[in-house]
């Protein structure tokens, strides 16, 4: 006799998990819309948005410069050696600029900001949740999503494209440093290829990507922190730990997945 339970169980679990995923998607979707909508409701939260731009944007500048420079430099090195095999090292400028602007710039910027600011957002909101600070906002009739989430979404929306642009420019200069100064490619050839290689579509694509990433990252990180208390695997400080981890993991994965989807649509 086959135990029917053991047959049904995997399907049961699969069903439960699917329902859970769909629920989460729905909940985070409505969470995003409430947060996004509240950016535009009166009174505007200028000072809070400014504070978040300072935290998410300005404080990430150093990290973005550093990673941008090294990414560009390594692209310069790799690109030069690969291209020189085909005798076409003159194309280095275009190769570096295109890979940065179309792909690496938006993605790496997003991932660096997730690591630097996203985790902090999740932890901060998570701690506010477990210490009842969010409930306290609620009892004061202050909408916690408007108060906590909207300024972060707005700040990400402004910071991500600017930081991506910065990443790209510094990366291109990094490529110049290795390709031209270190390996002796002509400076004029490098920059003329940069200029001729990039089209407006590439830049628009880069902008679209960074905007989408900003919304994904801000929403997921706020969401994970905001619902820390509903996590089953851990409560209290442990819950905040899990929330931070899943904020980072989920936003990284979603950034890469959506990057693929967008690239295939934009190409």
């Amino acid at each position, binding site marked *: 006799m086959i135990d029917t339970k053991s047959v049904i169980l995997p399907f049961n679990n699969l069903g439960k998990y699917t329902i859970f995923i769909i629920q989460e998607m729905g909940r985070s979707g409505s969470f995003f819309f409430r947060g996004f909508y509240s950016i535009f409701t009166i009174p505007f939260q200028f000072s809070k948005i400014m504070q978040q731009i300072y935290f998410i944007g300005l404080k990430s500048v150093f990290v973005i410069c550093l990673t941008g420079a090294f990414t560009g430099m390594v692209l310069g090195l790799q690109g030069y050696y690969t291209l020189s095999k085909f005798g076409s090292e003159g194309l280095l400028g275009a190769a570096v600029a295109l890979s940065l602007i179309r792909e690496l710039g938006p993605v790496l910027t997003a991932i660096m900001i997730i690591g630097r600011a996203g985790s902090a957002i999740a932890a901060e909101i998570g701690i506010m949740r477990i*210490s009842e600070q969010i409930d*306290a906002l609620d*009892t*004061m*009739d*202050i909408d916690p999503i408007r108060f906590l989430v909207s300024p972060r979404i707005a700040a990400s929306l402004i910071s991500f494209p600017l930081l991506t642009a910065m990443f790209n420019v510094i990366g291109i200069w990094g490529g110049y440093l290795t390709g031209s100064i270190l390996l002796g490619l002509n400076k004029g050839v490098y920059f003329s290829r940069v200029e001729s290689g990039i089209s407006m579509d590439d830049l628009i694509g880069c902008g679209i990507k960074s905007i989408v990433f900003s919304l994904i990252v801000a929403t997921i990180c706020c969401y994970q922190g905001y619902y820390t208390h509903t996590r089953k695997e851990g409560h209290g400080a442990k819950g905040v730990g899990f929330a931070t981890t899943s904020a980072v993991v989920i936003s990284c994965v979603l950034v890469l997945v959506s990057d693929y989807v967008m690239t295939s649509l934009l190409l």
Partner: protein
Amino acid sequence: MDNHALIELRNVSKSFGSQVVLDKVNLTINRGEITTIIGMSGVGKSVLLKHIIGLISPDSGDILIDGRNISGLSRREKGEIKKRFSYMFQGTALFDSMTVHENISLPLREKNRLSKETIQRVVMDKMNQLDIGSMAHKYPSELSGGMKKRVALARSLVTDPEIVLFDEPTTGLDPIRRNAVHSMISEYQQKLGFTAIIVSHEIPEIFYISQKLIMLHEGGIIFQGPVEALKDTTIPVVTQFVNGLESRHDSLTGLLPQPRGEERFLQELARFNRHNYVFSIILFRIRELDQIHEKAGHMVGQELLRSFSAELRPHLRFTDICFRYNLNNIIAILPDTNLEQARQTCSKLSKLLAKTRIKEILNESSLECSINVGFAEAKRDLQFENMIREAESSLEDACFFKNMEE
């Protein structure tokens, strides 16, 4: 005062998983009253408060505010109701990345269209009243537990709410601060007329300021009624709980607490009825206590009350009984003493007490203070309350330590 039900819970049930916390709870909260909820730890007192303010929704049952069921309201209407409420959390729930001043001013900054100057003035007023004026720029993590409680209290009162829910407002405070908080809640309640619901373990001190008492036990309401009805109750769980928590000495004054004092009164009355042993009572009240609270804060007022009690007790006979009758009144029962002798005792006391610590407190804060005293002599079949009333009606200025004398 309009006394109809402001908040009503009908058959409210709530479970978390398999644990039933509230099981068909019915209760009413009257407008303009202080209602105290007591009960063992973990019995669901905080959950009950959170239901009232809408942080938790019931599994079944209705919560009515002003006769309107809150579950059917739109978000905007719920917001309108929330504006009338204020909630002081058990764990204070202060915003730890904001300073004390920002914490207290937040509800005003976010919700009211007040000018910066007005907000500053209102917030500083509240802070000074609570003796936290110097902490304005500190962060909650830099404060002690008692200070955090006071900041939370200031934050909950700064919007002049109509209904205030206090979740253990005084747990962890020392006796003077605890009594100062109680006296402040009572004073504001009288001044602003808000409705308060307090979850508290401070028995019997909390009874001095509350009008109604609710006891929660095993998911249900086991006692609900005016505080005076407590002593007539025969429900064993209630009497056990209350007697168990009741301290033998009043924590502020070190005298007997009110229920013990009343018990001793009844004993004396029985002696009088049977053997005709006459006795008198003297009621002491600090006359300018309200002004002192206003000028120097509730802490000074309570410190004064404490010092007075501490000085009073040793100057009475060993057989005299001295107890705290309510928030600001102290009663001495003098056995084998008639009215005339009681008056003589009192005038002796006024001379003895003239040069004491109280004087120093008064001089330090340049205040004036005198004690009002009232007398009453036992009569056959005279109830406790009636005798107190008689003493209150004969209140006179005893001029114990008016500053200008000497």
